[in-house]
């Protein structure tokens, strides 16, 4: 074996605290090492050329690069040695920057540690075997989960790019949160007016197959070849027949159904079309409120429906779709107001959330755009907005900023003045966060042109006094306590992960953070990728986002899918489990522990029962290898012998 070792200075990043020349000299002493050198910037083009030249000149067959983290440049150097004719798995990296040079000041100790790191890499590379990727066909269809603005944007961009799109939305209509907003900041243009055309496009695009009121049941497979089971929840209305005429809704006698679209601002009918612009514009029955379901008799809608679309016997239906990539755009949720006990939870009807206020402002909302107090339907004159209602509050587990509340409060204060010119708005805030084009100017307008009074401080308590709500808080700028007698209080409740976000992540095999938001592959450089190849993120499922960011991510995710699908074949990672059928005793313990069901039972010609790995399904975690008692199933590139060689390189008594 002829190992070549390249020790990188990384300028002074490594060389500053590691004696790189000594590390190279020590490497030269190790049996099997035919060449060792140190180089200023190994990852630079001349640095890589040097490796390629050395491979030819010194006839090297394995390469160790001691430099930064392999998470940074492993791929770079794999390509380098591949260009020089070596199998790319004949590379090992020793991380002497992040794990050594940057975390210790003692040059002597760092150098010793770097020598060990290089010894381990040499020991391992000598155990490495050439691995070869196999190619497989990609199914060029894409699944988009979530029909909010981010998901719709991703779906439309993919469809316009010529891909077949399966769009799954769990509520009865697409549009997400944006469809419920009245106006958007900072331009004050009508939210549904700009979103509506997109919704129509989604509904009509011949490349988009929309599953509304449907949820993801199961995801199997891997990049390029997923099998998705979709649960079409029972609507009790045959959507093939429903024309969306709305007659049923008009005649339905169950008038007290919870209105999900309007966040319960006012009740709706048990059979309803969520909102006038709904796509698809189809009715559905809420069996929790429908008399037919509760009492077993009614049947008004069935009688009135001109197309006979009502079907009380309808059951959930599971359909399977096959796709090659997934865009996750499941959005976000809002903090349950009940947690905010100091604000009365939801005990006081005139303390409402920001999104409920949006619905009060909206011309097609339950009040037709007239702002009225939920308690007595009178017009409020004094309105208090409380920002950070839950956000930036460690005690309730939301230490982060929800990002868009400062802006929508300013917008709502402006709209309030427009709707009720003699009203006075107060805004309690902690900091005004308005980074964005025209954003800061917008919050200033709310104060300067629309007279909203901004009070810097937290609200400590809200309680009723007669018909009024007393809002007590601190004005930290004046250093005084303030009490405002309000007619209506609007809480900017914190943005949290969508309901069921964790379960969805588990189905997708992607990571999520402490708060339930999905984790991107790299916070800066891979913002819409996940660590699971083939799965991309868009919108607020990754973290609270405003509309332009969500749309931007939707397009970005679509671009990633389109570029992935620009190839016909994909290469599978060969670093997967492999069974030595001579050693395998067929106990199939590996099959029980494989998280991906990538192992099946197989029978050899001799009749011997053994485990078999489905190459394309194996994700390379190695749980099987540490389960197998006889070492018969080995995760390639991380075999027992490879890891043992690293252990013995540093543990020798």
């Amino acid at each position, binding site marked *: 074996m002829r190992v070549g070792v390249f020790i990188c200075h990384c300028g002074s990043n490594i060389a500053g605290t590691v004696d790189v020349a000594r590390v190279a000299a020590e490497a030269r002493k190790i049996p099997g090492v035919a060449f060792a050198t140190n180089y200023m910037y190994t990852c630079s083009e001349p640095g890589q050329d040097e490796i390629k030249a050395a491979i030819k000149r010194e006839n090297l067959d394995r390469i160790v690069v001691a430099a930064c983290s392999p998470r940074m440049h492993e791929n770079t150097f794999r390509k380098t040695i591949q260009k020089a004719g070596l199998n790319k798995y004949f590379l090992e990296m020793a991380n002497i920057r992040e794990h050594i040079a940057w975390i210790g000041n003692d040059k002597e*100790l760092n150098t010793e540690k770097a020598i060990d790191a290089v010894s381990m890499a040499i020991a391992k590379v000598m155990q490495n075997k050439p691995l070869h990727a196999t190619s497989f066909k990609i199914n060029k269809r894409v699944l988009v989960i979530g029909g909010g603005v981010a998901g719709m944007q991703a779906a439309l961009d993919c469809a316009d790019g010529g891909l077949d799109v399966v769009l799954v939305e769990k509520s009865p209509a697409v549009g997400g949160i944006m469809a419920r907003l009245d106006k958007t900041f900072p331009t004050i243009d009508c939210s549904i007016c700009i979103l509506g055309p997109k919704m129509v496009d989604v509904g009509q695009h011949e490349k988009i197959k929309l599953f509304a009121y449907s949820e993801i049941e199961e995801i199997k497979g891997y990049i390029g070849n997923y099998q998705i089971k979709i649960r079409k929840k029972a609507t009790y209305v045959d959507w093939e027949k429903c024309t969306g005429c709305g007659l049923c809704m008009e005649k339905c006698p169950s008038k007290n159904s919870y209105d999900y679209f309007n966040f319960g601002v006012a009740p709706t009918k048990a059979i309803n079309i969520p909102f006038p612009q709904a796509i698809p514009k189809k009715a559905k029955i809420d069996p929790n409120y429908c008399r037919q379901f509760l009492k077993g008799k009614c049947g008004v809608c069935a009688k009135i429906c001109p197309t006979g679309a009502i079907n009380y016997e309808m059951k959930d239906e599971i359909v399977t779709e096959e796709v090659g990539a997934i865009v996750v755009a499941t959005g976000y949720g809002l903090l349950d107001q009940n947690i905010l006990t100091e604000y009365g939870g939801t005990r006081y009807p005139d303390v409402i959330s920001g999104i409920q206020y949006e619905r009060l402002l909206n011309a097609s909302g339950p009040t037709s755009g007239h702002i009225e107090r939920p308690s007595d339907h009178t017009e409020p004159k004094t309105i208090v907005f409380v920002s950070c209602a839950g956000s930036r509050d460690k005690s309730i587990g939301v230490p982060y900023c929800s990002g868009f509340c400062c802006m929508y409060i300013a917008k709502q204060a402006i709209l309030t003045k427009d709707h009720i010119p003699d009203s006075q708005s107060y805004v309690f805030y902690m900091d005004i966060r308005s980074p964005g084009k025209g954003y800061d100017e917008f919050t200033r307008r709310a104060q300067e042109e629309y007279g909203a009074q901004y009070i810097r401080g937290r609200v400590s308590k809200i309680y009723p006094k007669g018909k009024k709500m007393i809002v007590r808080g601190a004005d930290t700028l004046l250093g005084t306590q303030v009490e405002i007698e309000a007619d209506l209080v609007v809480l900017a409740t914190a943005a949290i992960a969508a309901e069921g976000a964790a379960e969805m992540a588990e189905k997708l095999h992607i990571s*999520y953070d402490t708060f339930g938001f999905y984790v991107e592959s790299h916070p800066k450089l891979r913002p819409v990728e996940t660590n699971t190849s083939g799965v991309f993120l868009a919108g607020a499922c990754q973290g609270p986002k405003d509309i332009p960011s969500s749309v931007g991510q939707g397009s970005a995710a679509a671009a990633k899918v389109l570029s992935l699908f620009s190839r016909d074949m994909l290469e599978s990672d060969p670093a997967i489990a492999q069974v030595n059928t001579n050693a395998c005793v067929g106990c199939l313990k590996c099959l029980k522990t494989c998280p991906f069901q990538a192992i099946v039972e197989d029978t050899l010609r001799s009749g011997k029962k053994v485990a078999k790995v489905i190459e394309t399904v194996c994700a390379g975690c190695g749980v099987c290898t540490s389960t197998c008692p006889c070492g018969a199933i080995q995760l390639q590139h991380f075999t027992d012998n490879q890891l043992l060689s690293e252990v013995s390189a540093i543990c020798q008594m």
Partner: protein
Amino acid sequence: MSDVGTKELRIVGFLCNWCSYGGADTAGVGRFKQPTDLRIIRVPCSGRVDPLFVVRALLTGADGVLVSGCHPRDCHYSEGNYYARRRLEMLRRLLQFMGIDEKRFHYTWVSASEGQKWQQVVTDFTKQVHELGPLHDKKEKAD
């Protein structure tokens, strides 16, 4: 000499590629200083860590072994760390029984973003192993 003050001991770390190895990278990027005793072996998943690697290391010269993976629920392979948790807990109790102080072995969860936590883990574990001293009567390094 290591930051802990006495002669360096041999500590082997098995880190999962996706979380803890990344966490150690993050600690490096943040220049969070750590004792130098630890030698890191990268594995794809904490579920890849056969408890016998820990045994092998402890029997052949390591004074301490650290295993770190993704937090439960956050495994890149969704379930690997759950298996690791059971196996390593079993091992911890077995080591103590056979006369190897359980403090020489630690398993924990550090995510790719938790650079500071990683620094803390390495510092505290190194300190803990130093308090116990060497496990073996080692010959002085030949050179």
